[in-house]
């Protein structure tokens, strides 16, 4: 898999920390591999919306990658609850259903961006840089590739 210039946190130069939320183990592993190529760190994983909320409270990740359809609580509802408590939360919805109603619903409830599956690493990388804004910086680092 292609390596990207590592995206670090501007405030301390540490890797961006991610919470990956998807009920598919395969999808979580796939996203985790991409995160590694971005120089990021998977702080935690969750398989449903309820767990995502508790894991967000516990880990305070820089970015949440959130699936939509999951058991117990769907991703859009979980995103809304997280943003209500933490308006600074950066949540990127990752779903195979990319029609307008879904995207608008997610953005209206506090998600910062939407990426359609199958996820292209270069697309997700650009979204991560955009969502991190000035709180992230892309810089060459040892082992981060080109």
């Amino acid at each position, binding site marked *: 898999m292609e390596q990207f210039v590592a995206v670090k946190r501007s405030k301390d130069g540490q890797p961006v920390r991610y919470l990956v939320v998807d009920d598919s183990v395969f999808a979580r592993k796939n996203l985790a591999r991409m995160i590694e190529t971005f120089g990021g760190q998977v702080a935690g994983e969750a398989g449903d919306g309820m767990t995502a909320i508790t894991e967000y409270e516990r880990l305070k990740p820089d970015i949440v990658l959130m699936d939509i359809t999951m058991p117990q609580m769907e991703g859009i509802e979980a995103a809304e609850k997280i943003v209500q408590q933490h308006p600074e939360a950066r949540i990127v919805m990752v779903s195979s*259903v*990319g*029609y307008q109603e879904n995207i608008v619903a997610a953005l209206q409830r506090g998600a910062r961006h939407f990426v359609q599956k199958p996820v292209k690493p270069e697309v997700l990388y650009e979204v991560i840089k955009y969502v991190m804004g000035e709180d992230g910086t892309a810089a060459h680092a040892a082992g981060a590739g080109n």
Partner: protein
Amino acid sequence: MELRPTPQARGTEMRMDLIQPFINAADAVLAQGLQSPTSVANLSMEQEAYRRKGVAALIWVTGDIEGRIIIDLDPGTALRVASRFAGAELPESDELVRETVCELANQVIGNAVTTLNDQGFHFRVHPPVLHTSEHGPKSTEDTEALVICFDTAIGSVFLNIALRHNCTRAPEQAATVGHAK
């Protein structure tokens, strides 16, 4: 990837405008995941009960369009596809092989739903389930199954689609949201 109905497929209730988004989505998802082009090797109608070939994931859809879609790979191909998607060799018995086939189905159907929704069709997509029985439901006279065989560099992937346009649905009943992931 534009397909035209074969002589066998012509004259049936299956509408190619409903099917084409699934073919395009499967082509795109497989090509990206496997990092190699795919081609449609065969397209046929199936009137008999579905017979599973290996590792199969089934997704039901309800609403303006009703029916089911099955993605089916023989065990060896499923293992190679899952290993390619995972970026590492997986053991044949690995749960991740079955997970990958379900996620593959989810991505194909989700992308097709996106296209069909943009065309004005509204329906609900149910979560993928692993299809474990040897036989599936028999096609009915108004929902014959269209079987599309995709050739990839590492084996064949079968898309078995049995869908029909639900003409009885009133427009207000169609306001359902897609539920693929």
